[in-house]
């Protein structure tokens, strides 16, 4: 798995997302799947930068990726107050939806599997993207 640290700044989220895109480029995945990966990575990292609070001095955000022709696995890690986006309720479905809050819906819709865990003060969000059979 390849690894990249991500600065606690929205300006580095695009760079990190592009880095993930380069890592999966060699796996010959379908364009749709690569698009889904970029959407989810951007959402996950932007959420951490914009909304997460560090447990200590720094958020220590990082992204790891592994890809082959069967799909890709992306793991986003951090040292923030845990927030399990796999369990957070989706935005209320009403006519007066908030402007934000749609990123979680996209992550759930665009990934094959989401898993979250916390261990020794480090959170891990694992996103799996499977190529169609």
């Amino acid at each position: 798995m390849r690894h990249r640290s991500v600065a606690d700044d929205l300006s580095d989220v695009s760079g990190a997302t592009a880095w993930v895109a380069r890592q999966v480029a060699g796996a010959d995945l379908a364009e749709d799947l690569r698009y889904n990966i970029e959407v989810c990575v951007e959402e996950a990292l932007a959420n951490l930068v914009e909304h997460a609070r560090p447990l200590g001095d720094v958020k220590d955000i990082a992204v790891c990726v592994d890809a082959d022709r069967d799909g890709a696995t992306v793991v986003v890690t951090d040292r923030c107050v845990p927030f399990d986006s796999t369990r957070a309720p989706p935005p209320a479905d009403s006519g007066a939806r908030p402007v934000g809050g749609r990123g979680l819906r996209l992550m759930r819709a665009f990934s094959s599997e989401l898993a979250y865990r916390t261990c020794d003060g480090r959170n891990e969000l694992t996103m799996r993207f499977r190529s169609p059979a």
Partner: protein
Amino acid sequence: MELVVEEGPAGVTQAALIGRMDIEGAQAVEPSFSVLTRLRRTLVVDLSQVSFMASMGLRTLMVGARNQHELGGKLVLACPQPNVEKVLKESGIGEIIGVYPTVEAAAAAITA
């Protein structure tokens, strides 16, 4: 990210967004898009040249739509590429802001 504006028939403003509406793109276009949505009451946003859209881009569109609503106007979207259309649909934005397959259909809907 670019924003190209032209005045269409029947007083409908057509704004083409060009590029990636990722965080960087959304931040780059937001100032001019925000001004546009506060000055024009009927706006068709042409997405045919938007190659990527995620929640930051959606946020820019939603704020623009809200600005329009406050003016008593309307903002609609046109010609999203397939992956962008998927984002609009899965996020639920398409249920709040009209999405049309062509600029002409969008303009017709907004002036109906």
